[in-house]
């Protein structure tokens, strides 16, 4: 899955605050490291050499010992002061994280599964709500309040260019607030080991201008496009009548499964399988035929259909923009 995923390339205020904190800590820690290594190097350089047979110095020279004691005391005092500075920097960044204005937020309910992300926008508003998976679109400049849940094992939501991570813990609900201040595609990945295919549980956050976001949002709220040719119609029929419908939902058709990503507008997504394959016609067909090849151990079994049936299903899903 392609996208910017660098904590050192912040695209929003959360990640920016953390980037500043990182810089502050890096500078201070590097200085402390350099000074300590310099002290060690000077000590090594200036101390005379001896062999094992040299007798040990038991009588410490008072002046030298006093000088050493002064150095140690200054070292500790300096370290303590710097630690205090970093402590305040940390608290300051912490407060900045919680100070994100939340007016006019986009609300998303994110549920972590093994191994994909289920998203419901505006879940409290039946007129506005819709479901999607693995790819979140957000408007630039508006806060996004995400409620995080998990029903199976612990996952963790992390999009480094936007913010730090938050765990999704079964039995507990947490929230995270992010805001993208720059248009772009930001990649994230599950950051708490959740089993077999934890490595392939990615997601993207696509930050768009408010107009493009509104267009995307209204599109998502509509039911699935009707098939425009016979092949797509055949594809829809197969989807509704075979195993696809047992797990997947496509709003406006008879497919109403809740155990797998919502496919109503799947063609508009860049990737399938939470980042496992790109959403191109060829790869889509291969994914449908045998998802296990790309992501062994996922819940989606191989689909055993004739080649033209497979093409029909793929064509139909490819039409669901």
């Amino acid at each position: 899955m392609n996208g910017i995923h660098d904590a050192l390339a912040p695209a929003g205020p959360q990640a920016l605050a953390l980037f500043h904190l990182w810089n502050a800590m890096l500078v201070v820690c590097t200085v402390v490291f350099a000074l300590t290594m310099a002290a060690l190097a000077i000590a090594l350089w200036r101390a005379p050499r001896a062999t094992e047979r040299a007798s040990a110095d038991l009588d410490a020279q008072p002046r030298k010992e006093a000088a050493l004691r002064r150095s140690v005391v200054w070292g500790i005092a300096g370290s303590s002061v710097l630690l205090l500075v970093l402590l305040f920097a940390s608290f300051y960044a912490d407060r900045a994280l919680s100070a994100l204005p939340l007016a006019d937020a986009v609300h998303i309910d994110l549920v972590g599964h093994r191994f994909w992300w289920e998203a419901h926008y505006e879940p409290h508003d039946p007129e506005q709500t819709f479901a999607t998976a693995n790819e979140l679109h957000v408007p630039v400049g508006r806060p996004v309040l995400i409620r995080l849940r998990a029903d199976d094992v612990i996952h963790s939501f992390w999009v480094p260019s936007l913010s730090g991570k938050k765990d999704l813990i079964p039995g507990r609900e947490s929230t995270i607030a992010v805001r993208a201040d720059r248009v772009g595609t930001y990649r994230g990945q599950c950051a708490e080991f959740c089993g077999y295919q934890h490595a392939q549980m990615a997601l993207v956050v696509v930050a768009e201008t408010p107009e493009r976001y509104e267009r995307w949002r209204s599109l998502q709220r509509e039911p699935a496009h009707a098939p425009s040719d016979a092949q797509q119609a055949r594809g829809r029929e197969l989807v509704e009548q075979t195993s696809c419908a047992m797990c997947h939902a496509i709003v406006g058709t008879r497919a109403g499964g809740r155990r797998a990503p919502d496919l109503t507008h799947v063609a508009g997504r860049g990737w399938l399988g939470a980042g496992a394959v790109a959403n191109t016609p060829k790869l889509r067909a291969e994914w449908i035929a045998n998802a296990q090849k790309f992501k062994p151990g996922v819940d989606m079994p191989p689909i055993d259909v004739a080649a033209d049936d497979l093409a029909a299903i793929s064509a139909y899903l490819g039409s669901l923009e």
Partner: protein
Amino acid sequence: MESVGALPSRPRPRKRARTRSAAAAHRPMVRDGDGPGSRAAEELERTWQEKPGLVGWLSINNHKTLGLRFVVTAFFFAGLAGVMGGLMRHQLATANSHLLGPDFYNQLFSMHGTTMMFLFAVPVMQGFALYIVPLMIGTRNTAFPRMSACAYWLYLFGGLLLFGAFATNTGPDAGWFEYVPLAGPQYGIGKRADFWNMLVTYSEAMGLMVAVDITTTILKLRAPGMSLRQMPLFVWASLVTSVMIIFAMPLVMLGANLVQFDRMLGTHFFNPAEGGDALLWQHLFWFFGHPEVYFIFIPALGFVSAIIPTFARRPMFGHDAIVLSLVTTGFLSFGLWVHHMFATNLPELGKSFFTAMSFMIAIPTALQIFCWIATIAGGRLVMRTPFLFVLGFFFVLMIGGLTGIMLGSVPLDLQVHDTYFVVAHLHYVLIGGAVFPLFAALYYWFPKVTGKQLGETLGKWHFWLFFIGVNLTFFPLHILGLEGMPRRIYTYGAETGWEPLSMVSAVGQVINDVSTLIFAINLIRTVFFKKERASADPWGAGTLEWSVASPPPRCNFFALPVVSSREPLWAPPAEVTHVQGLSAQIREGLTTTVIDALPDTRYAYPEPEIWPFVAALSVTIWLVWSVWSVPGFVWGLIPPALAFLLWYWPNKKEAKEELRWEREP
């Protein structure tokens, strides 16, 4: 005749030893106190030799053999875990690698972490403590040698069982900390998590047994005159570690047992649907888990404190400050555990407290580092391999410690938690803070243990290659973590851009392998082919273990020493130098008072017996049976009960012999 003791007392009539047989009353009582070569020394050698044959070998409870067994076994497991690490680096060196599948990889990283933490790092430190501490404090064996013997066999069986499980595709696969619900009854399918819980039970039992032994040994068996203020820093480190172990290890054993109950009996400790909490496991585990890393780190600090004075030819600067730092670090380490849980939904104010505590623990460590540098600055330096490894420790550990500060900050941790940044940090602190001092300690005490010194030239090659390899392997991981690479992923796509640095890291790993090879060559050459024997004190060190031959006689000291200084071998000769009057015909030692080390009682060490081995075997039967069957948990208790009964049952012959020497208080 002067009396040395706390209280004056009236002269008491000499009590007759209680004997039962006339024949025994006629045998002369030989007491120790004369040097090597004397009649007493010969008797001591005879008394302390081991029983012959396989049964004898299994019955050994001499701390030196046990310590050596722990260390050798730990390095064996470390080698296996190291191979796993190498495989993981190889797999991740390229994007979309198909070298290893996800299931095997998940078992690999879980086994690597579990083995390194439970089967290598803690046992190797305990092994060193078992070997060195009695020698350093001037006694003949630890306080509970049979318990430590049993601990060794438990350790070996536990490790072998874990690897047996791994070999049969039943290795743990949910990380070295096996979070629930992933390792719980619903998602932890098969027996994998059960074996992990079993391994935890084994290694914690083992750790606790050795910890109680070492604590009692240090508090009660020190040589007369070695008050707490005169005690060497390595002994302090071992004491602090052992006491911490006693307080922290029960937690993980408790937690692992609760997970087992959830898995096998249907309890709901961690099941949120029935009132349990997934986070409860994290609390239990990390309350143990954070002190755990200090079980590994603090003994290593003890190594450094033992080595620097020798190679700076002067006593440690700030001895008392270092003691206080060790104790403070021990205490503070219990207050940090939530910093492993910053990404959960715990209250923010609570988390900030743990940031403050995590920062605070840097101060005693910094104090120790500054005292060490001051010692070096005020000394005359002997640049040999042990000292080189200590210098490497400074560099690598400091980087690890500083990234630790970064991780201790809640907001910053939210970016780098569960990423390769943490992997980099933990390897820097564990390799820098523990493995470098460990190698230093190995080179340092090798002549004492084996009677031969490891080669200097190969040692220097080993050091430099290891130093370069470690930095090359783990430094890039900091950057990878910041670039979004999470932990525990078996592969990644090329579009992530993580490949170049991963490849650099893999090259570093190869250099590490070469350095290990050189170390192995050095070992083999020295042990099997070197002719030169080492003297008692090849490094010119000051502590008591260097006063006996290399390797030490089975009884350690023909006459227990009396000390009045922190570096007894450097101090000018004292008026009273040694203890006499202990039996040379039964295994006797001397207990002293806790704070001032005044002679208190004589103590008869247990003779070698097979029962610790049998007990460990019976516990294995019980634990393995319980993994498969719930009634097995109950019925399986019978073999250990029998074994411990037979262990405890007095041996008439030994009792008769001890009665000859018995004296009432």
